[in-house]
């Protein structure tokens, strides 16, 4: 993350030139401490925070930026730059139906996200099909079935304790037969530390490819926005097992900021595609790096 580059971007900004003088609050040691706290509090990894703070202190010492608005803008730009790269739209896929797998640890919001995503696609004129492949957790299938009814999207369900890979296979086959544009498969929550469950996931991925060559097109890792540094380890493990193509961060309607995702984007080059901001079907919004960073680092710093 480079503050200098961030600084370069803000230097020419018309607004900052216009309002720069009015808000010429000088940077004080107390303000720097507060900035560090804000960053740490949002779950940005300590190594990234330390690197930002080191650069900020340098920039201030070198008199390249001495006012609060200037430093803040530079930090924001640097943070945005971490999240910018990568394709944030859903991958079009190499065949029909497009196959999306929704994966993640227990309780992160997979089922809800699968339903929200189905609604988004349906609203966009697609004909999605849901697949209830969490055959493990009690009543997980019923949960997605209720959602499917709510968002008026058809569903293919597994049987409790059945083979989840078979459900995905059947759903993709059904999607081909019925001409659905996209199949969204909800999978059971699994901790990335459980070898046998991760093996099961890689089998699901493999079987999806057998149902339609090249599938899955998109593997979305759903991360709970309240998760701390463990999110990075989750992302690493799931990527290794299931070739994750994008991240969804949920529960950002609370007070958590989801800052762990910076290290993920930085290290794994994975784009964050959607944010979960509530429990209703429409509470899934596309990721906007600038808005995300602004929520984390408000204007008055």
């Amino acid at each position: 993350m480079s503050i200098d580059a961030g600084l370069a971007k803000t230097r020419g900004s018309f607004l900052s030139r216009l309002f720069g003088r009015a808000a010429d609050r000088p940077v004080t040691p107390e303000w720097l401490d507060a900035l560090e706290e804000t960053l740490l509090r949002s779950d940005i990894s300590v190594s990234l925070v330390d690197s930002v703070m080191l650069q900020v202190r340098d920039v201030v010492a070198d008199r390249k930026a001495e006012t609060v608005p200037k430093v803040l803008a530079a930090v924001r730009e640097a943070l945005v730059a971490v999240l910018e790269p990568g394709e944030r739209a859903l991958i079009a896929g190499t065949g029909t139906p497009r196959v999306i797998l929704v994966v993640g640890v227990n309780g992160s919001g997979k089922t809800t996200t699968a339903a929200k995503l189905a609604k988004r696609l349906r609203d966009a004129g697609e004909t999605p099909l849901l697949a209830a492949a969490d055959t493990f957790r009690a009543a997980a299938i019923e949960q997605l079935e209720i959602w499917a009814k709510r968002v008026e999207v058809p569903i293919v369900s597994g049987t409790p304790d059945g083979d989840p890979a078979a459900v995905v296979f059947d759903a993709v086959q059904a999607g081909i037969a019925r001409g659905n544009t996209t199949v969204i498969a909800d999978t059971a929550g699994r901790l990335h530390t459980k070898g046998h469950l991760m093996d099961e996931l890689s089998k699901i991925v493999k079987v999806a490819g057998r149902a339609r060559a090249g599938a899955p097109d998109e593997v979305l890792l759903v991360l709970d926005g309240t998760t701390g540094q463990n999110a990075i380890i989750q992302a690493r493990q799931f990527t290794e097992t299931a070739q994750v193509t994008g991240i969804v961060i949920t529960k950002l309607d609370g007070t958590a900021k989801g800052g762990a995702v910076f290290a993920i984007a930085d290290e794994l080059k994975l784009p964050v595609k959607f944010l979960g901001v509530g429990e209703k079907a429409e509470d899934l919004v596309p990721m906007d790096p600038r808005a995300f960073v602004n929520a984390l680092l408000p204007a008055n710093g």
Partner: protein
Amino acid sequence: MFEQLSDRLTATFEKLQGRARVTDADLDEALRDVRVALLEADVNFKIVRQLVATVRERAIGEKVLESITGAQTVVKIVHDALVEMLGGEAVPLATADKPPLVIALVGLQGSGKTTTVAKLANVLRKQGHHPLLVAADVHRPAAVDQLQSLGKSLGVPVRTVSAERVADDVAAAIKGATAEGRDTVIVDTAGRLHVDAAMMQEVEAIIRSAAPQEVLLAVDAMTGQDAVEAASAFKARLPITGLVLTKVDSDARGGAALSIRAATGVPVKFLGTSERLDGLEVFHPDRLAARILGMGDILTLVERAQEHVDEKEAEAQARKLLEARFTFDDFYKQLQQVKKMGPIGDLLKMMPGMGGLAKQLPDPQQAERQMTTIEAIISSMTMQERRDPAILNGSRRKRIANGSGVTVSEVNALLKQFKEMQNLMKQFGAMAKRGKLPKLPGMPF
């Protein structure tokens, strides 16, 4: 869960202990490392700052800079500060003056409340209690179905409530419990955000009318900096009596638990250690502090062994082992028992001094997988083959390989290993007979 934190701190301390004398710079460096280790473990930043300040103050107070044993003193100061943060002894579940005992689970969405309700019911049922479950999560789709299905698998009744009268219906279920022969009522509530005013009012109303002796806040062990804020908000509105730290079987470093305990004073009472309904452990703060610092947790290990290993069976097997009468069938039984105790990696970490060994193992997950392979191979053998592996000719081996989905060379490898183990044990046994081996104290297997 806490291993990385423990690794980091151990490395810091080792560096420090390598010094003849602790200089000012050494102390600064050590405290910087401690800060990073704690932040990486998700300990709340305010608490980290406080802890680092406390340690520095005490270190200077105890004159570590001038003392020859300065390094050890710093280690002890950090240890004590951590133990203080975690609280001392285990805090038992509340009791009711007059039955039923009422327990309510509250918390954020996806924190593990429903599963914990079922696990608690399982623990209480095993202790001879008669729990009743109340499914008061009327918000999440199929949450009621989930609890009903869990109740069914435990043989514990589940009451439902109407969405318009949640608080009243919960109270009514509690009122009727005693007459139905139920001495404990466990209430599952919906997940909610601490900033959702309407939902917080709802849970306040439920708790007011249920008047539980125990209000447990379920907290995901992987939670980051937000843990303190959320827990404090729940505590401000509800009489929280304890925490249940869930998903502890992840590799999260557990700073959330430390932080909430330190910030709110609410003790951690239980740990959720697996998705299975027997995956709930009583939390022992003192033991956990020792685990964080790499001292192992032999007490938990012994308890788990006592719970899952049949002592007579273990003794008989040990005797067979030493007399080289140990067969594949015995081996199979033993594998089953070890598996019941939990993941191998966890078990090793609990043994003092074994944390390092656990790391040297290629990978506990791999060990786990190997165990599954071995199990599959043995279960494809006939009883006769298990007792007398000598009869395993080529075609039998091929059949076993096919049956267990492995290659013949994997079967061969297992047979070879088993034979080597038997030989080794024969020698051991002979030595033991001549009294050359000390009895291994307290080894369950």
